[in-house]
């Protein structure tokens, strides 16, 4: 037997493998086959509805990656990676929310499309920003009528943010492209001591970790990624800790320090 043949052939698991195992090895209220099937069907309805209004959904218009416009179609078409990614994210968010038990929550953009989540985990006072997510929540995702207060998106961008929040759910793209260029900092200001912000999809479709085209990970790659801009801004904010959690889409959790 040669030295070569004695070497163990090890194959790194794919993200899909990891996500599937993560879901199988967890006990969650949110992530189940029936919830996934429900979500697939709801997302199909969104696409049908938008098309019925004459909206053209060509790649040029909606894009080719995962974004607010392509997400319903990818979910509706049972894209395995997207489903695994959504469920992986939902698991982490459910765990953090269960630990935190927030009482005053702002949903800037929700990435969990299940009314059970809102009713079971995030407590008494829920604010939801008036945007496409609220439309989808009311008309497609949440027909069980979670009670919440709507925050106008222009108000949010002009400093009228509910204060003493102990949980905020958001997305990097909404923070980096808002009309208010300091929305990230303003939202963190609105957190109560020990308050938490979950920034989902913070790996920009994993391009933060490795170049999708060159299939290579380098310090330069990470440094030049737009998500690094987000994390650099977090790094400049005093009185917070933040953690980038490796899920399929990446999850950055910001925790405001106590006074």
């Amino acid at each position, binding site marked *: 037997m040669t030295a070569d043949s004695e070497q163990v052939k090890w194959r790194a698991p794919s993200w899909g493998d990891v996500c599937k195992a993560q879901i199988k090895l967890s006990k969650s209220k949110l992530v189940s086959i029936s919830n996934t099937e429900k979500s697939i069907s709801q997302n199909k309805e969104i696409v049908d509805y*938008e098309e019925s*209004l004459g*909206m*053209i959904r060509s790649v*040029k*218009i*909606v*894009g080719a*990656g995962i*974004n*607010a*416009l392509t997400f319903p179609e990818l979910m509706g078409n049972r894209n395995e990676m997207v489903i695994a990614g959504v469920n992986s994210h939902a698991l982490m968010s459910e765990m953090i929310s269960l630990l935190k038990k927030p009482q005053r929550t702002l949903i800037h953009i929700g990435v969990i499309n299940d009314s059970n989540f809102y009713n079971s985990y995030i407590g008494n006072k829920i604010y939801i920003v*008036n*945007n*496409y997510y*609220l*439309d989808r929540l*009311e*008309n497609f995702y949440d027909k069980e009528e979670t009670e919440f207060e*709507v925050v*106008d*998106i*222009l108000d949010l*961008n002009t400093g009228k943010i509910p204060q003493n929040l102990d949980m905020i759910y958001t997305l990097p*793209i909404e923070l*980096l*492209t808002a*009309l208010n260029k300091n929305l990230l900092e303003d939202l963190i200001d609105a957190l109560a001591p020990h308050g938490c912000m979950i920034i989902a999809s913070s790996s*920009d479709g994993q391009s933060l970790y490795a*170049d999708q*085209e*060159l299939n*290579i990970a*380098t310090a*330069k*790659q990470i*440094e*030049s*990624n*737009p998500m*690094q*801009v987000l994390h650099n801004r977090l790094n400049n904010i005093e009185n917070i800790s933040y953690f980038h959690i490796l899920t399929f889409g990446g999850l950055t959790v910001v925790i405001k320090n106590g006074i």
Partner: protein
Amino acid sequence: MFDKEKYAEYLGMCLESCALELGMDNFDLNSVTIDDFIDKVNEVYHPASKYVKNKPNLDERPTQEILLRKFIISKIINNFYFYRLYSQ
């Protein structure tokens, strides 16, 4: 309850601000077609799509500024889609 007029108004402000930055003269949000708008955005932000599309070698990878622009383009186009959807 979702207020589509208010959301469309906010998106309109974002897009007007973007048009100003892009130097789009006589920009009329309600008459420009989605296709024309995307073409104009891509024309102004051309370096972003060009660098990424041509897959240059590692030393020629686009800078953070260019990648950030590309990231922002996708959101601008999303905003325009939602503007049209909610201003119907």
